[in-house]
């Protein structure tokens, strides 16, 4: 519902109560009232603004509201499937999802302040918004105590704050009778911080997970890395610095691989895997019947782990590996080679944690910023009487190049859009290909 007074002052309100049987039968978890209140003030309509020449419109607004999120896959009921078991010659009931009687809505309280403006005879207009979102009862799949049979499940696990700015601008740079150039620019910047975590593991191994971890005081999906101290000149095992700057050697007395990091304080925050800023920049040019649009995007403020090969274990070479995997330590002196990997773990006595000394080393984490030209499109509209008569009402010839150009901030040639982060190590996926598209659209 909304109400405007005097064409200048507006107040809005909306409300809704959702009820769900997907969540625990406990009433405190079932009902979620969602509502919002807002107000806006169209300043430019005020008398004292009448003389502001170049200012065409200016509105200030503010809203506050609560909304919620629900996932439909699990709930308070045990979910199963029927599967035939040939060894028992009977149908079995396989448990798929355990009941979770304390599952509840994820709630977000949003405060938003914004300005909308238009100046220079509507040549430049835009909005600027500042928001603060406080989310509680975050829903996510978290690691649980395997003594309760399920090592992970969807649970409510914490709270976080997202705070940011979104700016959108539209400008008409040039407009003459036959030529125009308009620009659309938007940028959003977001800072995220976990404020509370109540589920999931905080063991040392979870800090170096490839998907990042969630820790209070840090953004969601934070990467924590070891401080690389080079390879051991005697046996090629990785060395790292502890929190006091001392070297930890990761081998046993005979020089075989052995993971010797024990203190959670010896891994250091390196950044978040989620981008902090996103930029869109579109320019459109028209000249008579021809138009051209260039779409660009940029993303960044986050980090990613390099898709390095894992330390060879046990001499199993039964798969193709990337060429860089042949650059590993073989004899003393090799530790000075550029980008050399630790020596293979021939006996297989290292553990999965030993492998993280390499994949989660700080030298193998890079910035994930990139700028891309998403597309360049050209279009020509044929005049409808081109052949003397009106054979068609509209005809348009288009030519588009998709993903022609990119620039990445990292020096490993990694494209963050052709990349997959796995729990242990990251991988490159098929590259984003440039495509050329030509089309003709005729309307009769």
């Amino acid at each position, binding site marked *: 519902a909304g109400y405007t007074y005097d064409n200048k002052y507006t107040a809005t309100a909306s*409300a809704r109560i959702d009820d769900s049987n997907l969540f625990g039968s406990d009433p405190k978890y079932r009902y979620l009232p969602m509502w919002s209140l807002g107000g806006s003030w169209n300043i430019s309509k005020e008398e004292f603004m009448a003389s502001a020449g170049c200012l065409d419109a200016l509105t200030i607004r503010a809203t506050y509201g609560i909304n919620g999120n629900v996932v439909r896959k699990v709930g308070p009921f045990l979910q199963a499937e029927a599967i035939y078991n040939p060894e028992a010659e009977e149908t079995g009931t396989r448990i798929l999802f355990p009941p979770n009687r304390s599952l509840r809505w994820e709630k977000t309280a949003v405060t938003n302040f914004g300005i909308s403006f238009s100046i220079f005879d509507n040549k430049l207009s835009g909005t600027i918004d500042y928001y603060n979102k406080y989310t509680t009862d975050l829903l996510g799949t978290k690691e649980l105590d395997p003594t309760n*049979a399920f090592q992970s499940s969807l649970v409510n696990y914490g709270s976080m704050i997202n705070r940011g700015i979104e700016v959108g601008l539209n400008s008409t740079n040039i407009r003459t009778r036959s030529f125009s150039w308009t620009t659309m620019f938007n940028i959003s910047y977001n800072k995220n911080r976990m404020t509370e975590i109540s589920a999931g593991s905080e063991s040392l191994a979870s800090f170096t997970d490839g998907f990042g971890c969630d820790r209070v005081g840090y953004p969601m999906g934070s990467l924590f890395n070891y401080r690389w101290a080079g390879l051991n000149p005697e046996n090629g095992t990785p060395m790292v610095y502890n929190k006091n700057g001392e070297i930890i050697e990761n081998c046993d007395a005979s020089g075989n691989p052995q993971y010797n990091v024990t203190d959670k304080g010896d891994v250091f925050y390196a950044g978040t895997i989620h981008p902090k800023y996103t930029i869109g920049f579109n320019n459109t040019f028209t000249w008579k019947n021809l138009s051209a649009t260039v779409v660009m995007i940029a993303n960044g403020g986050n980090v990613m782990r390099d898709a390095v090969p894992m330390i060879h274990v046990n001499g199993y070479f039964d798969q193709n590996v990337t060429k860089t995997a042949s650059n590993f330590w073989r004899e003393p002196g090799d530790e000075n080679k550029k980008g050399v990997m630790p020596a293979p773990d021939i006996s297989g006595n290292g*553990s999965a944690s030993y492998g993280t000394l390499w994949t989660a080393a700080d030298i193998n984490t890079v910035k994930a910023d990139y700028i891309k030209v998403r597309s360049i499109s050209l279009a020509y509209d044929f005049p409808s009487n081109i052949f003397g008569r009106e054979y068609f009402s509209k005809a348009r010839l288009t030519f588009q190049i998709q993903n022609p150009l990119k620039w990445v901030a990292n020096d490993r040639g990694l494209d963050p859009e052709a990349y997959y982060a796995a729990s242990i190590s990251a991988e490159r996926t098929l590259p984003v290909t440039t495509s050329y598209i030509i089309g003709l659209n005729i309307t009769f």
Partner: protein
Amino acid sequence: MKKSIIYFFAACLLLTACDDYLNIIPKDKFIPTTLEDYENMLNDIECCSFGDYFTDMMTDNVFIPEAAPSGLWTKQKLSSKKIYTFDNECYPESEIDQMWSQSYRRIFYYNSVINDIMGAKGDESRKKSVRAEALLFRAGEHLNLVNLYAKHYNPETAGEDPGVPLVLVADINAKHRRSTVKEVYDQIIADLTEAIPDLPETSPATTKFRGCKAGGYALLSRAYLFMGEYGKALENANAALNKYSTLVDMNQYSVKIPGPFPYVPGAPLGWTTIPDGQYHPESIVARHFLRPFGLGMDVCASAELSALFNNNDMRWTLYYANGWPPAPPYNYWNTYGVKIYLRGDYYNNFLSTPEVYLIRAECNARSNKLQEALDDINLLRRNRITPAAYSVLKLSDFPTGEDVLKSVLDERRRELAFTGMRHIDLKRLNLDPRFSKEVKHTAEGHEYVLPPNSPKYVRQIWPAASKFNPDWELNPTE
């Protein structure tokens, strides 16, 4: 303005009237509600596999040759190597300790049945029967767990020795503590005592993967044997054998495939004509190992175990081989005087009649009923030894009662080798100065020694579980 406020409140009232519709169970998901839905949980393959065959690697039954080309050491996983060299911290957080993760997974199934089946739609007495089966299986899981992750039951200290979590609810949000060894055994006894009256006479399904009364008595007699309560163990062994006592003459079985043929699909292991555990006439309640043939093809019988057998024993000639391929240098018999535990077979590692006979014989021998003990051993041996070589063991063959007991224990070792029982027997026999011994294994040029009652007999709590429970006391490693 007023109108919109009225509309607003009216809308709210309408929504709350939806309440009744939302108490209905969502239709597009399979949520167990009937007796059959819950009963089928016991048929699922997740429940039909059971136990950890790696525990045998720490025992005096296992020998792993190292010398190439027939060495078996390099093919072992890191955790197996640690178990063999008596490192009780054999599973790190990042590797699955199947004994912990799968036992508690099955316990979740059993608790879902135990706690929820009585509210399901179906025949009351059948529901009680299925619930009793779930109690039997839950007791079996807790018994396995407490015998691996805790010290052996010692009546003087069991009330304080840390045991394993007793999980009696199927709730992912539950918090558990390490119950004491005594609390775990008390719960096991209580579960079985409650279950036995309602257990069916025979398995209610096609195979023996389900529970029955004889199984309840058999498991109870096993638990009492571990506790050292030989009188109660004997009583329950008799009750089990009164219900079901079939023994099968293994002379009728033969080798079907002598050994693993590499790269031939369908013949990755050796195989015999012995029926799978869930069909075997000697099975009371069947379970397979998660890898149904256990340690088959991975280890050799130790010199000590090999010396306990001879080639007239069908267990020796069917399950073990001189080597594979038969040609030297793969002939372990010629090189080391041992045989490789070779043949796959989906055998039963839960409750079978031979174990119950052996429990009865041991209890009789311990209470000086020596002839009764020999009767059972002779009966078992008649079904194991080739007829030409078989001879009845007579009381006069044994100078003392202790010698009869030793003979029973040796027969038990032969019969139950590689079924996941030996480490428990070592732990309980180590409490008796007559039978305590050291176990020695050699690996990578180093000799490892496991002294009797060493803390290394007790596997460390899986770190993936203990990290969520910092209040749990961890097992000592030295």
